């Protein structure tokens, strides 16, 4: 049973399109996150939700909109995709958001052409 699962694993799309990435965790964790890992392997936090409430929103373009229908799901919708959005996007979860370590999904490799 996968603890944090995200789909799709690969996403290739044209500039200007709108796409979504889905994430689900079955760990009963309270907090979920979206991270972006660029080609230089830096992992940068984008968003964090605690029990469906947005608690961290880093400097991310408005084209990125997270949605948390319940505490087990955190989806990421991206409008008007740009070449610079190409990266690996990781979903993660943790208990209470502090000090417990993060459980990451296996990532979604987004390529914008």
């Amino acid at each position, binding site marked *: 049973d996968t603890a944090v699962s995200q789909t799709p694993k690969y996403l290739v799309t044209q500039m200007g399109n709108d796409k979504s990435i889905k994430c689900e965790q079955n760990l009963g964790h309270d907090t979920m996150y979206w991270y972006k890992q660029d080609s230089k392997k830096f992992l940068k936090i984008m968003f964090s939700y605690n029990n469906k409430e947005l608690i961290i929103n880093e400097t991310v373009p408005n084209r990125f909109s997270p949605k948390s229908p319940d505490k087990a799901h955190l989806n990421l919708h991206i409008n008007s995709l740009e070449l610079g959005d190409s990266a690996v996007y990781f979903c993660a979860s943790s208990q209470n958001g502090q000090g417990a370590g993060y*459980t990451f999904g296996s990532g979604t490799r987004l390529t914008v052409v």
Partner: protein
Amino acid sequence: SQKIEQNSEALNIQEGKTATLTCNYTNYSPAYLQWYRQDPGRGPVFLLLIRENEKEKRKERLKVTFDTTLKQSLFHITASQPADSATYLCALDSNAGKSTFGDGTTLTVKP
């Protein structure tokens, strides 16, 4: 601005030796520090967490130290094995629950 540096992009060692990875930070007062392992094409896997009031933490062949005066954490893998080859990431966390990750050190253990 906050900065996290991990020693050298790549570290090559011989099987059986101890690997030591470094995580230095500036302009940061972390409440705790975490280490993760990342294999190619996979998500990071949590290894160890050490709090600001702890000097050292151990888990099997892994040992982490945390010196808030030097603003440095050392991550040791003793009796290293080729299966330990991976990229290791450190992450610093404030009490706000927001983590800042380093860019990782890729460890290669040669048989």
